[in-house]
């Protein structure tokens, strides 16, 4: 019986309540004792052949007949009003078909009504001024230079401090703080500090960090009559469909969005971009398909960023290491438009057992580029502050930092006052400590080491994150007469190996080899699935795929029962063969049974069941970094990172390890190198690509050991899995910062940890 249930849905560090339809009963969980043959094994990616051969067609590779190309003119000012706009020369340039701007485009609300698709008031350097559509991309780009625009520069605020200052220039009329400060308190923090035998207090700052997915943002769009097809590099095809339909005021069923292959997003592609709508408007007007792909420079200015944070933390503990007070304040620079705050305080609120906790987060608007979710938004930043303070306090008390953590292990979710569905963080601590040789860690030198040469150190970071997934998500499966199976699900493969994991799940149920199962995704013509973000793809979609396959399995048993003239209950399915229990020779293969049933008689549908009531589902993990610091140059080399995460059942250990490595490497970039720079006077962006923005490259990657707790969650969902996409980036910068402090006695908690900052902390910078 379908029923509506109210679900607390935890997503990207925030909780929201939503009504969802649950169509019936879920399957029992694959528990710890379940023996699985395909799930849990190192299956190479099912789409590997497409990706290594150049066959995989990404958005920019699509080339429908008559395709036109678009380029974007961006604001050179952080805050300005367009006073004159003249596109005559551009419109007459070779190959140019159309120039769209505030002068001629429909007024379509954007950024939650805070702006328009083309707004004559520009609120960041990079804001869209106009788009040229031409026969070739080069012609479109050339014509940008021919557009004459006069701007009236307006007063601007660029930094958190400037935005919070009294009488600050307002980015939006409602004020510079999104929704007011977010406050949380439990216990009595002042009383806690009075009880404390030792306290530490520190600042932690993280810069703007860019996603820089290798495939830039963009769409190819094509109208046929009043129906619109969009190919988009996106993590959320159904979200794009909804936004596109709303912006263009056309029915949802007139929009089809596809993203069969996409080249990375990391949170920056969670919804429709202006580019999709603009391309659709141009395409409709010109009657030709239009491609609008960002250049790398566009990507650097207007594709989102992890917003800069400024944090302050104070911890108090008793002599025996018991935490008695946590006081945390964080601020996040959201840029000009994004209306979702950074959940910076998440780790401080929940990671450690502590009776007295107070947190406050302010999210401010500035005249800088809008931020976007970036792999564990808020939590990576917040973990730097919390975990640096934890190791500093442990050292101060003379307690091993791992021991300190174990003494303050949170058995339950203290924020919502309920148990965790499972928590195997102790296992993760134990395994990383062993693998990294944590017992070698000497306490940090009490004062900064002023000598010469190189010093090594070890540091740890802990991670807490959601990744539960939730309904709604649906899947369809059909078993073909030749014994091959097909899954259709409207999710996305963003590089995480989702397609392979889903194929494994279906293959497991039907006991077929993985290569007999094909997965089609990235198309809104397929059953609904949520966005691929929040570490939820497998935990939301996997259970639905399992259920769809299970329905096919039941039909198969019935069919076999009638062919083999036995009761359905007596039919067994093993290794692709159906037979009568106890009489293995009375049997036939899945293909033989399917072949008898006519064309496509066996099909199944599955849905994602409700999350269990009264529990909190979290992933946990620990990482240890070993670094070498050159005391003369301040340079930090990461030698090794050992990671172990509790993400429930691991569906594919090969792909799991890739996820861990990828997260660690992005965390390493953030720790040591990456910093998106805005000119403090003009607000313009100073790094326009990989020449000036230092993403990690081949030669700086340390050894990474990717371990997994790999214990199924007993109740979270029918797979026993939790998400793995975001967890591995969370503890890495904290672990590296702690290792630098352990090596040198100098604590740098302002990322990136550049040589200059290290030398400064060592007192060696004049």
């Amino acid at each position, binding site marked *: 019986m379908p029923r509506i249930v109210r679900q607390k849905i935890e997503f990207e560090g925030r909780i929201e309540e939503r009504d969802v339809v649950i169509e019936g009963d879920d399957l029992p969980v694959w528990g710890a004792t379940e023996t699985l043959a395909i799930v849990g094994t190192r299956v*190479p990616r099912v789409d590997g*052949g497409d990706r290594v051969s150049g066959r995989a067609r990404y958005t920019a590779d699509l080339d429908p007949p008559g395709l036109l190309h678009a380029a974007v003119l961006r604001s050179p000012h952080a805050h300005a009003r367009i006073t004159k706009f003249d596109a005559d020369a551009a419109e007459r340039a070779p190959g140019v078909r159309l120039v769209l701007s505030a002068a001629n485009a429909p007024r379509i609300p954007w950024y939650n009504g805070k702006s328009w698709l083309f707004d004559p008031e520009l609120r960041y350097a990079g804001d869209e001024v106009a788009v040229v559509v031409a026969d070739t991309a080069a012609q479109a780009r050339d014509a940008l230079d021919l557009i004459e625009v006069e701007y009236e520069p307006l007063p601007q605020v660029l930094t958190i401090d400037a935005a919070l200052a009294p009488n600050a220039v307002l980015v939006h009329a409602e004020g510079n703080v999104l929704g007011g400060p977010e406050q949380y308190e439990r216990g009595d923090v002042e009383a806690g500090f009075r009880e404390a035998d030792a306290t530490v207090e520190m600042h932690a700052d993280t810069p703007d960090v860019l996603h820089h997915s290798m495939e830039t943002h963009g769409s190819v769009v094509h109208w046929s009559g009043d129906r619109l097809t969009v190919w988009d590099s996106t993590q959320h095809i159904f979200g794009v469909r909804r936004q596109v339909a709303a912006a263009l005021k056309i029915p949802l069923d007139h929009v089809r969005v596809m993203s069969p292959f996409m080249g990375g997003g990391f949170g920056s592609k969670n919804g429709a971009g202006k580019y999709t709508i603009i391309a659709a408007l141009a395409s409709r007007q010109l009657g030709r398909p239009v491609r609008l792909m960002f250049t790398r420079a566009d990507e650097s200015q207007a594709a989102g960023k992890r917003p800069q944070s400024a944090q302050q933390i104070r911890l108090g503990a008793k002599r025996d290491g018991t935490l008695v007070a946590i006081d945390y304040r964080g601020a996040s620079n959201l840029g000009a438009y994004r209306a979702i705050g950074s959940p910076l305080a998440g780790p401080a609120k929940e990671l450690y057992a502590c009776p007295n906790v107070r947190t406050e987060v302010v999210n401010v608007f500035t005249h800088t580029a809008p931020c976007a979710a970036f792999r564990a938004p808020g939590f990576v930043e917040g973990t730097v502050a919390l975990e640096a303070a934890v190791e500093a306090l442990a050292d101060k008390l003379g307690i091993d930092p791992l021991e300190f953590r174990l003494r303050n292990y949170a058995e339950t979710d203290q924020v919502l006052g309920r148990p965790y569905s499972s928590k195997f963080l102790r296992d993760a601590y134990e395994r990383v400590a062993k693998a990294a040789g944590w017992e070698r860690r000497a306490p940090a030198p009490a004062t900064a080491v002023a000598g010469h040469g190189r010093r090594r150190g070890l540091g740890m970071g802990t991670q807490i994150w959601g990744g539960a997934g939730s309904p709604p998500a649906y899947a369809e499966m059909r078993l073909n007469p030749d014994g091959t199976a097909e899954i259709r699900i409207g999710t996305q493969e963003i590089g995480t190996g989702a397609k392979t994991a889903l194929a494994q799940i279906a293959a497991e149920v039907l006991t077929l080899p993985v290569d007999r199962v094909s997965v089609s995704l990235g198309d809104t013509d397929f059953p609904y699935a949520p966005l691929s973000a929040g570490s939820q793809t497998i935990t939301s979609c996997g259970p639905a795929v399992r259920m769809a396959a299970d329905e096919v399995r039941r039909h198969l048993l019935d069919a076999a029962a009638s062919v083999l003239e036995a009761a359905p209950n007596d039919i067994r399915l093993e290794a692709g063969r159906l037979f009568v229990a106890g009489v293995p020779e009375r049997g036939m293969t899945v293909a033989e049974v399917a072949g008898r049933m006519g064309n496509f008689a066996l099909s199944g549908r599955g849905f994602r069941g409700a999350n269990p009531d009264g529990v909190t589902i979290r992933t946990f993990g620990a990482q240890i970094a070993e670094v070498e610091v050159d005391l003369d140059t301040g340079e930090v080399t990461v030698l090794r990172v050992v990671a172990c995460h509790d993400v429930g059942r691991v569906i594919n250990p090969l792909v799991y390890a*890739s996820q861990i490595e990828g997260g660690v490497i992005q965390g390493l970039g953030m720790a040591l190198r990456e910093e998106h720079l805005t000119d403090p006077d003009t607000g313009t962006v100073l790094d326009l690509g990989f020449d000036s923005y230092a993403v990690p490259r*081949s030669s700086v990657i340390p050894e990474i050991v990717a371990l997994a707790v790999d214990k199924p969650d007993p109740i979270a969902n029918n797979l026993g899995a939790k998400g793995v996409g975001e967890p591995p980036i969370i503890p890495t910068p904290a672990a590296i910062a702690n290792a630098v402090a352990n090596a040198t006695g100098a604590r740098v908690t302002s990322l990136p940890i550049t040589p200059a900052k290290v030398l400064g902390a060592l007192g060696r910078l004049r």
Partner: protein
Amino acid sequence: MSLESRTDSVTFTVNGRAEEVRVSPRRTLLAALREDLHLTGAKEGCGVGTCGACTVLVDGRPVLACLMLAVQAHGRSVETIEGLTRDGVLDPVQRAFIEHDAFQCGFCTPGQIMALQGLLRRQPDPSAEEIRRALDGNVCRCGAYLRIQAAALEIARTAEARRPGRPA
């Protein structure tokens, strides 16, 4: 006549086939391959020579196709990722990439593989350090670096084992 409206004929070999394209003098080799010849395996990750996603081989050497003009390829031999697969059979480097899970989103992969092909042509059994350096120009934002290196090392080891005068 403006430069933009002038076109030149470029004849060259692409994956062993003779091709001719008519391009404006400013058209890059990458654009000619992707737009004119519909070989979209080589990717544009930056367009300005900083990411390696567009790497192809020209006369057997790795080249950033976004930095080379199509007219400069006249009379030369170009190999792209599409040329590695013969009759649907993947070449050993491609197979090693799959076995080692040497990619995630796969967008950088054609460039990584072609850069590695370039290295292996020059030096069939490179050291780990040579591999790291040869691929330093190829950004992988997903962070598949260690697996790419592992795949490359495996190929190198097999090559070394096959070298004349060495025990197999």
